[in-house]
């Protein structure tokens, strides 16, 4: 299973949820599969999907899912310590770990060698860390979303590989405003 197939499989679970999606191909694939106003597509700031989702989850009472990648988490690993110590129960970090920098040509990351994000997350203080296959991801994500007492980090181990997609045609402020409208904060759209 590659990222595109996984994102497709997750649709029924995340369709109504607030999702912060990682920059590059993850966002472009998600956009192509099923564009939704409750999906916040990152157009810059690689590494910060986990952090943006955390800030949102700390500010509202709805479930928030950060979809991140192994390369991006490696770039901002300190935020796992913030998540381990501060994440509220409405927060789920889903790391799609294909051991490659997909958006830049599938160069290998360290998670294909000695680095285990599961161990890093646990060592950082995250208490509910699940590592699973792509096929098991939906079920684990549903479990995380329905647990009202705990936050989760899910690491979905899949194969590398991408499908042809185009850049997201939406203006950043449009992405911002329709997302905030979904939360109930924008009335003029």
């Amino acid at each position: 299973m590659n990222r595109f197939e996984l994102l497709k499989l997750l649709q029924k679970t995340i369709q109504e949820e607030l999702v912060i999606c990682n920059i590059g191909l993850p966002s472009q694939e998600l956009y192509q599969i099923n564009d939704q106003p409750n999906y916040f597509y990152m157009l810059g700031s690689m590494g910060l999907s986990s952090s943006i989702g955390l800030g949102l989850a700390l500010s509202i009472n709805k479930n928030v899912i950060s979809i991140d990648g192994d390369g991006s988490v490696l770039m901002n690993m300190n935020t796992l310590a913030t998540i381990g110590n501060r994440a509220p129960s409405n927060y789920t970090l889903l790391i799609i770990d294909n051991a490659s920098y997909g958006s830049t040509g599938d160069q290998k990351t360290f998670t294909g060698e000695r680095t285990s994000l599961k161990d890093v997350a646990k060592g950082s203080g995250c208490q509910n860390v699940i590592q699973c296959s792509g096929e098991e991801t939906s079920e684990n994500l549903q479990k995380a979303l329905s647990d009202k007492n705990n936050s989760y980090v899910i690491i979905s181990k899949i194969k590398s590989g991408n499908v042809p997609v185009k850049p997201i045609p939406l203006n950043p402020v449009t992405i911002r405003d329709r997302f905030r409208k979904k939360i109930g904060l924008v009335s003029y759209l």
Partner: protein
Amino acid sequence: MKISQKIISKLKDGGVDFFLSVPCKLLANMITILEADKEVFYSAIPREEEGMGICAGAYLGNKLPCIMMQNTGIGNSVNSIVSLLQLYQMPIVFLISYRGTPGEPVGAQGAMASVTEEILNTLRIPILHCNKESDIHKIETQSKHAKVIEGPVAILCNFDLMKDDQ
């Protein structure tokens, strides 16, 4: 403590209701005040760049966030400021302890101080200088200004202002 108390109170008057910090000796009193404050969210974080992300998320959730940091933190955060906060037009307040300004005992801090304002100017971030106690009341308007312009604003608290705030 009086100066720190006033700064936090003006930030809150300006609408700030979500605070992060990457600690600095000059921010220590503000951190102590915020740790005891039950009205607003506060947390220390390991790195400024992730703070920009957390603040972006807090803004999406209707907060007016403030990140407190040394001026060195601006250097750690340039891409996230431009390609997240400014790209999506997100109001965030940067409360910056301006290390390396006159009175600073650590010579090496002068290096980052010498480029701090040029970086902020290059990023077109409005700057409020707080050099003396009578400047502090302007923090309220500067914080509100972030919402008006839908982007980050900076407050630079220089060494002299903060050093005697025991």
